């Protein structure tokens, strides 16, 4: 098979390196290499295996939002953090995460429906998520208001390291009762004093 004569793996590695965080789809690879997508997939799978097998490698191939790209191995993150600064290191707020979770699992969904679930106004988290390109308007709901419907974006998949939306963990049906405990205690530790004398000021 010609795959063994032409150094396909090496070529794909070059291409992935050059593409950087834009990544490459199987289709693009197949086009550039003038091979079938299935063959491209085979090559990339082999390359991924090589990377995985070799503990000495510091980089690896990851699949993100339908593209393949090179990335550093997670184990080395401590050293990388010393080397580089991530300008937008700020992570999403709790409100934004909840809102995003609802959109991810129930898309397409209107703001009113999200607010119904959360029990609070959700304008600001939606605004933030739109600005961060994690969600987008995907249409309009039927009905008098013709409200916007929201859905997740490609950037959403990239941001959370997902290959595709189907890869989302299943929505928890049965919840561990302890999960809230820590943050809750934190709050009540702080406000214990006034809590003890609620009527004092009256």
């Amino acid at each position, binding site marked *: 098979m010609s795959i063994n004569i032409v150094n396909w793996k090496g070529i794909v590695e070059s291409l992935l390196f050059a593409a950087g965080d834009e990544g490459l789809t199987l289709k693009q690879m197949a086009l550039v290499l003038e091979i079938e997508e299935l063959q491209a997939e085979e090559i990339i799978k082999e390359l991924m295996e090589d990377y995985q097998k070799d503990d000495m490698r510091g980089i690896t191939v990851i699949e993100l939002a339908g593209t393949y790209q090179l990335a550093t191995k997670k184990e080395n993150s401590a050293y990388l953090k010393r080397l580089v*600064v991530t300008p*937008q290191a700020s*992570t999403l707020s709790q409100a934004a995460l909840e809102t995003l979770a609802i959109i991810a699992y129930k898309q397409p969904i209107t703001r009113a429906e999200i607010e119904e679930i959360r029990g609070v106004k959700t304008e600001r988290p939606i605004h933030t998520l739109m600005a961060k390109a994690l969600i987008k308007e995907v249409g309009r709901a039927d009905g008098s208001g013709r409200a916007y419907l929201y859905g997740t974006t490609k950037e959403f998949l990239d941001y959370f390291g997902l290959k595709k939306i189907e890869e989302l963990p299943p929505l928890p049906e049965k919840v561990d009762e302890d999960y809230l405990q820590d943050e809750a205690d934190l709050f009540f530790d702080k406000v214990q004093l006034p809590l003890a004398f*609620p009527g004092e*000021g009256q």
Partner: protein
Amino acid sequence: MEHYNVKIDAFEGPLDLLLHLINRLEIDIYDIPVAEITEQYLLYIHTMQVLQLDVASEYLVMAATLLAIKSKMLLPKHEEDLLDDELGLGHEEDTMEELVERLVEYRKYKEAAVDFKEMEKERGLMFTKPPSDLSDYAKDVQPEKTELNVSLYDMLGAFQKLLRRQKLQKPLSTKIARQEIPIETRMAEILDDLRQFKVRKSFYDLFPVLDRENIVVTFLAMLELIKRHEIFIEQEGNFSEIYVSAMEGGDEY
């Protein structure tokens, strides 16, 4: 000092607060003691008011709902049925059931948000590189005027990627530069500052660095120093200059 950190958004809304209370009281979400939960809920709302925090209207609506459920449950069964029949209302279980349903539904997404947080963190452990500059390979290639196939969101998405892209530290050092300023440190600095000059200083001169974090931390530090009787603040008249001085014999901090 600590309660200055409490924000109204310590909870993500009335449902979140209820879930918290249910957890704290170690009760079953499907078997909520209405009287107790209502009392706890109102106590919380009251606390927020004592702390002079805005209580969003959603919290008050929920308080009313809880009170309505509670008072209906206090009525003897037959009277309540009569009342319901008269008013054409359902049973109190319906309202409670509805609330439990909402809590269960909301809890699913709150839990999912925990997963999302974890995924966000995991993804942050991997670093990528920007696309290489391939202009040398494309000198003689003319871009074609083809149909575009991108949306505003693609553009925003690309821009986000750019913003998230890591940059080499310059100058390279082994420590990450940005650090939160502990209030204690700022308190000590203010005291040193005031004691060194032995005269009162203008309130405004105590804010040497005018970024938000510094202003807030300095302000909190001053409040704490006032509380501990370590500094003294005077103002001769409305809108006139505010002066700050160190108290004599204040505890060494």
